[in-house]
């Protein structure tokens, strides 16, 4: 059994080894971790809130988990795809700088035959330009990860979430109108809007209950 100090030492080494040379990968992984921790906080806020009745919890917890899954999967799939495609474009030379291409040409390689081939790996074939290549690759990776995360967090996820939330809102209203007669405080009139629902919920539940999807 490793001691706490050994575990911390190993953790530092793993972080240094994995992310020291790959800032793009770090942004993707910490982004996913951010969504996971944020979602866990939201789920546990519902789970450990004594003011929420058991019957409501059985509905709200799966809803929070589904919402978290949309956020995490969309973020990971889109951001890591952007990052991986950008990495492949740089490693095969499809995206390159003039000086890197000049170096490859000077080494005797035919550019049209060498660049853009799936097996081409500039870092492996030309270790002498590692510094220049890595600086360029890290820049492209970080840019691609950021663009990917912007598209995922600010376009894809809100569209998916709106669709999902609208369906859930209809279900909640239907449930409140029909079955949930045990909750007179939350019982709405027929023309309940989200505003009205939030107002009623705020009277019943603390702020953390309806503050889901906070990206940390």
């Amino acid at each position: 059994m490793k001691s706490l100090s050994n575990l911390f030492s190993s953790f530092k080494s793993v972080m240094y080894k994995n992310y020291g040379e790959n800032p793009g990968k770090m942004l993707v992984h910490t982004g996913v971790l951010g969504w996971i921790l944020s979602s866990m906080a939201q789920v546990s806020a519902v789970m450990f809130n004594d003011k929420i009745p058991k019957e409501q919890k059985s509905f709200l917890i799966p809803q929070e988990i589904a919402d978290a899954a949309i956020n995490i999967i969309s973020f990971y799939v889109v951001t890591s795809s952007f990052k991986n495609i950008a990495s492949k474009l740089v490693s095969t030379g499809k995206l390159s700088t003039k000086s890197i291409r000049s170096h490859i040409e000077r080494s005797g390689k035919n550019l049209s035959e060498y660049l853009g081939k799936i097996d081409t790996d500039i870092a492996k074939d030309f270790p002498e330009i590692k510094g220049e290549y890595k600086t360029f690759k890290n820049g492209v990776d970080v840019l691609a990860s950021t663009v990917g995360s912007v598209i995922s967090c600010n376009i894809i996820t809100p569209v998916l979430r709106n669709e999902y939330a609208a369906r859930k809102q209809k279900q909640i209203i239907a449930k409140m109108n029909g079955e949930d007669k045990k909750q007179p405080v939350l019982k709405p009139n027929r023309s309940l809007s989200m505003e009205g629902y939030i107002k009623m919920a705020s009277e019943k539940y603390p702020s953390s209950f309806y503050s889901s999807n906070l990206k940390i």
Partner: protein
Amino acid sequence: MRAIFVIYSPYRLGCRIMALVGSVSNLKDISFYKNVSASLKKIRQKGLDVIPSVQFSQEKLIDTLGYIGKNFSSDKQRLALGVTALATQPFIDAKNRSVDEKTRKVSVARTVAKIIAGTFTGFFIRYGCIKGIKALSQIPSKNIPKIKSLFTPKGVKSNTTDEFEQYRNAMGTVIALVVMVFTNFLIDAPLTKFLTNTFVKHQQKGDKK
């Protein structure tokens, strides 16, 4: 009893596992695997062929990319996410036809409030934690107190390399994420609620006029 021992003996189990691992590694020699692998490679190559080849010649652009790779860490990424979120998300909510007009207005107010609160805490906590890790990851020496090298990995001799700088950013980000699990409730949620109410009141005043 003997039969059970023979069937479940660790030696036999080990042999079976080894055989299984061996057969999995031999998959690469099977022609089916080879065919699938070659087909996938062809598809990937075709995908790559579709993308035009780009050569960066402008020094300024190459330098900017280098700067981004070196300095654009999670705090700046969070800020970029927040700024672009303000430019996209409220419009997506405003055009959401699945809900009524009142709901749309509340949803826009809440989204703007969430973005401001989340970006504010997200940026500053990441920035602070990365700075803090930089201060606590000095190279150990006689003049450096032990606490100042608490986050320095073993065997690192220089704190000026790009790898070490990226490690500091990564460690700072991970610590920030742990901090933000708590600030999510302590700062983000109440700030979002306050801002949402303020924006909704402002909207209602505007509607009355």
